[in-house]
């Protein structure tokens, strides 16, 4: 396992080297140079799980703006979303901005009607089917089945997520990870509670448990398990560090197994600093960085897809509104009831 190579990519790549990677297309993506200097102080709740890559973006923004102070509270995305809701009920507001690794957690907060509407020109930068009123998807990620290529061929993997547990493969998962929980929410909405609970029970009885989905992918690569459940970028990142890894991606068809989810940002305070800070995340520099270094799918028009991901046309994600993924509580209750959590 080349954890070292992840670290290298993390530590050496700031924002600057990536500027040249932006697509030359004549889109209206703005550059950091066009943004006003940030002045003031912001509290950000940052959903953990992306290693140091989001941290690098934030550090680069802070470095560029010496008069700007960013206070960060880090925690698992679901915990922070819950904390924001609990704080609201207690009459406390600590966070100005919430950057979640998962749209479900965003939805949980949006449902409380405490997210501030965002300037329309910010919203219109996004690809048309990713435009919402009071939150912005920052980058996309696809649910995938990373598999060990020395253990099985892609043709052996079923195209239906629901039938996967019946095939007798050794499976690896990270049920505590927010993106996984959103995937289960999608499964509940698409296949119903009963089928989902059967599926969870089957997987739970045999699957190997990991702390996070990077761990899942590493477990697949080590051959500890045949197939895992993970967001696409973990596999791409691992393969970027270790091109000969016995690892590849499989996609299911039209079900929750290939859900396209998004990390997202919302504002709990409405002011110029907050809006300009959010603007930074949608510049071509940051979006290209997230695509080329984090292997995330840029959702701003005119930025290239990461290497190694099949064109979005070849993937058939389920038809589901991302904000519906906020229906997280029943998912957690179900997982708890089945002793998965």
């Amino acid at each position, binding site marked *: *396992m080349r954890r070292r190579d992840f670290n290298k990519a993390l530590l050496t790549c700031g924002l600057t080297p990536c500027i040249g990677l932006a697509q030359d297309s004549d889109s209206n993506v703005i550059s950091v140079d066009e943004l006003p200097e940030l002045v003031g102080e912001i509290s950000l709740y940052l959903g*953990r799980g992306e*290693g140091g890559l989001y941290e690098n973006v934030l550090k680069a923004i802070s470095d560029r703006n010496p008069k700007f102070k960013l206070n960060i509270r880090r925690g698992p995305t679901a915990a922070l979303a819950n904390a924001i809701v609990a704080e609201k009920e*207690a009459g406390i507001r600590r966070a100005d901005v919430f950057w979640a690794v998962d749209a479900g957690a965003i939805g949980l907060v949006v449902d409380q009607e405490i997210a501030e509407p965002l300037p329309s020109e910010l919203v219109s930068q996004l690809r048309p089917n990713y435009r919402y009123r009071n939150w912005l998807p920052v980058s996309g990620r696809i649910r995938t089945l990373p598999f060990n290529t020395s253990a099985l061929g892609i043709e052996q993997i079923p195209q239906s997520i629901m039938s996967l547990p019946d095939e007798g493969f050794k499976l690896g998962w990270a049920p505590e990870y927010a993106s996984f929980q959103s995937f289960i929410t999608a499964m509940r909405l698409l296949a119903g509670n009963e089928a989902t609970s059967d599926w969870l029970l089957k997987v739970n009885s045999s699957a190997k448990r*990991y*702390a*996070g989905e*990077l761990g899942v992918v590493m477990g697949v690569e*080590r051959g500890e398990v045949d197939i895992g459940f993970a967001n696409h970028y973990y596999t791409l990142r691992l393969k970027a560090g270790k091109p000969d890894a016995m690892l590849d991606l499989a996609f299911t068809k039209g079900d929750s197994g290939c859900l396209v989810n998004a990390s997202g940002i919302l504002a709990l305070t409405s002011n110029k600093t907050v809006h300009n800070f959010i603007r930074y995340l949608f510049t071509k520099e940051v979006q290209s960085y997230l695509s080329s270094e984090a292997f995330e799918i840029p959702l701003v028009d005119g930025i290239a897809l990461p290497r190694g991901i099949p064109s979005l046309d070849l993937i058939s994600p389920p038809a589901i509104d991302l904000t519906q993924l906020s229906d997280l509580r029943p998912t957690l209750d179900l997982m708890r009831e089945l002793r998965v959590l």
Partner: protein
Amino acid sequence: MKLRATFFSISTVVAALSLLPVITLLALAVEQMGSVYFLRHEIFVNTIIVVSGTALMASLIGVPLAIITSIFDLPLKKMLLACLLMPLAVPSYIGAFAFYDAFGTGGELDRLLPITPPSVEGITGTIFVLALYTYPFVLLTTRASLSGLDSNQIFAARTLGSGFFEIFLKVIIPRVLNAVAGGALLVALYAISDFGTPAILGANTYTRAIFVEYNALGFSQAANLSIQLFVIISVFLVLESRARVAKALPSQFVAISLGSVGKCLAYLLVGSIIFTSTVLPVIIFSVWLNREGFVGVELLTVLNSVSVSFATAVLIALVAIPVSMTATRDRLGKALEKVTYLGFGIPGIVMGTAFIYVGLQFPPIYQTFFLLILAYLLRFLPLGVSSIRNKLEAQDDSLINAAKCLGTPDNEIFFRITLPLISKAIIAGGVLAFLETIRELPATLVLGPIGFETLATYMWRVYEGGYFALAAVPAFLIMGVSVLSLVVTLTMEDFSR
């Protein structure tokens, strides 16, 4: 008179505060009686397996080491003992970190060595790592009781024709049994409260389950699990207080000389334990450090860790004085002191969850240093109190009585006689509190104000991100501070003797 009243009121306030987390948990659990939450068998069973497995394995390591370092006549014995106590300076989550990443297929050792070592994870991994860092408890208690062993008993047995093993079974074992049990119970208490090790190695015990519930802000569920855990801990605490050993000085100390084979075996055992628990993690962290360089940790993180621990240590030293003074005065004071010991039995993750809830009820203190330091104070105050109270109890009253005869007022007696006499114990208690605070993980993780990062929470973030190698610098810093503080406490104790 006035001083005494002030001390008494401080003791009362601290004792009342110590009840706060327990009351909060009870209130939270009762709040949702509608959905009665049954015992989660899997978590209960896992916890019991981890705790008893750790206690057993720590005893299997600690008892032979205690015998080797006490009744056998070995060159360099003092130094060996010092090395064997080193794991006390390493929080077990740091060991868990190193073992988790270095062992198993694709781990650090797999790359360095021609063979693939087995992976260290899950329940067995947790037991293994916890035992490696807790055996000194058993070693110390057992050694203390062996040092009271009279060699005349052994000579008598020999005269009656007993061989070594018979002596071992009939003379030595019965003598140390109580002490081993006492040490094993300390191990059990550590194992049951520890959060980092089972969380990193993926053993689903109470502390980990409480953290998962907290993350989903399932306060009632977290409170429910916390109370179950607290009940189990109370049982252990009661057992532990019963396992105290009566001490008698021997008329003749035991010193058995070993043949060269015996010596080799003894050194081999001692060496392999020191290697696995201390040297191996240091090697692994050095490999990482060498590869990555001094990266990752910001100076601010180090300053945060040091300043918050220092503030806590000073506060604990100051509060421990009135609590222990009151405790040695009368029965009520003694009872108040006992109440302040509650916090020591409450695991950090439980304390953290309870205080987040308290903060939400009183917004001005939510996510503030006030709550964080209060949590530290309640958790670690007993370290300061027991250090000072032991000194006070061992103190000769004649000086104070003489002063009283001369008509010295109470305040002056305290400042001119008592305080100078207990000053070293105060510092020793403060140093211990500093040591515990700087490596505290779960309460800091949950209660730290926004933007506040310590060495311990940084390590946790690195773990969650999967970038293990970045943990080398904070790991070395925490170990370094721990060793330093231990040396200071040990020297202080020597001076005060």
